[in-house]
């Protein structure tokens, strides 16, 4: 899957969890940039992403997600080749 396609799907998932239909994510977007994306909703978002992409993140990977682009790269790295 291309980065842009993963980003688009993340947009839908995260927008759904945060109830923000007009959310526009870029690779540089951080949680701090999005109102409502806080500690309380973060783990729900991670859980939703894992279920959608059928992937499993390691705790160390989640700790290193600095922005949406990091998440895209991590998901891509887990794709079945």
């Amino acid at each position, binding site marked *: 899957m291309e980065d842009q396609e993963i980003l688009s799907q993340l947009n839908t998932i995260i927008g759904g969890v945060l109830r923000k239909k007009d959310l526009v994510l870029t690779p540089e977007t951080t949680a701090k940039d999005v109102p409502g994306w806080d500690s*309380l909703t973060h*783990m729900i978002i991670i859980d939703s992403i894992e279920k959608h992409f059928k992937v499993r993140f390691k705790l160390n990977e989640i700790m290193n997600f600095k922005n949406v682009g990091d998440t895209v790269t991590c998901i891509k790295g887990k794709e079945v080749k």
Partner: protein
Amino acid sequence: MNFLNKITSVFNTYAERNAFCIQNKFYSYTDLLALTASIQTTINSRCPGEQNIGIVIKDDIETYASILAIFFSGKTYIPIHPTYPPERTDQIIEQAGIKFLLSKTDDTSYLGATLIATGYSSDQKNSDIALASFPFEKTNAYILFTSGSTGVPKGVPITYHNLDSFVTAFSALAYEIDCNDRFLQMFELTFDLSVMSYLIPLCHGACVYTIPDSGMKFTNIYNVLSTHKITFALMVPSVLANLRPYFEEIDLPDMRYSLFCGEALYKDVVVEWLRCVPNAVVENVYGPTEATIFCLTYKIEDAATIIEYNGIVTIGTPMQGMEAIVVDDAHQELPDGEKGELCLYGNQLTPGYLNAEKTKDAFFELNGKRYYRTGDITFRNEDGNFIYCGRVDHQVKIQGFRIELSEIEFHLRAITGSSNVVALAVNAPNGMMQITAVFEGEESDTEPTLEALKTKVPPYMIPAAVHFVATFPLNTSGKTDRKALQKMIA
């Protein structure tokens, strides 16, 4: 020796050891003493006659030194959260009669209160700290504000006697703590579990490791636990719920004491956690803010012997100086095995709320003893352990935060002008509890309503989900049937 004498002794004995690690920067007891003395001097010159002093809480050494400076001066601190809605902060300032606020930076304005800057300088050499003489019984050490069902936060004063009784009762638990211990401090200072997390280590010359304000709390907590090889951690069970999918990756052999408080602790999760902390004593502790931090404890030995009810681990037995009973609606004590309201009596009990009316509702006398009604439904088993069964009201705990659902409903009704709205605590897809607002009627845009709510209540009280139901189900009394509603949105 009271807790302030203990800290004085620690300042002398462990001067060069680390007292705090904040955002990866270490501060020795000498640093802490110098800053505390400096702030105490400032307090004495700027507001010598003031009893209640606010602190704009941040994750910095100045905040903790301000608390100590207030303690050593025999005054009372009230934590003010800089990101909570100004309206709520103003209510707290007004209720507590705060005229002065300590803050590292004076970049915020608060209702009628004067900000006093508390800068830190590594050149600070003034260490003439003075322990004031004042009556422990009657003087408040801090006042914390909890969610109030009528839309106004409720002030809970805790005296120096209450706090010292907690420290004494904690010592009686016989945990082997010394200056080599590393304590986790994961709580906002508006939450009284923070008090144990900084005060107990400071009484032993140990080091306090705080969690950064920024970033994601649960990953930050794990980062501090693993990086700094934390030996003592008091956490809310939500931390476990969030870390549970990753337990296989977690190994914390340095952890010696792992305590949980603030929410129901589930047996299945904590049993798995035991494998992550193979060398730790694991305990479930319990207590409302009104009874100073916690006052019942239960040691978890292994999966086979855990006492539980509906999957929830028992809250155990009272600590030294505290008593617990279960009463019926007429405030009469019930025999073992019968469910009723858990009531507490003893040295850790607050003298009463700032609002006298609230005090009248929550306290009663029985056999010459003054009891606090916790609102928790429990029964005592044959071993003397208290078993938690639920609440008598609509108070819930989300991530350890105490929330009156009726307070959220109060504000939502005021904002929308409609009475047809209910706040519920429901399970999120990942098993965590979250607040859900349910509106009666056709679906509409609730964003403006939730935005308005953010100006009234702290972030943790904002509903994470919204549902619409055409007509609310009613119970036989004609009231909204909350249980039926919960099923409808499941």
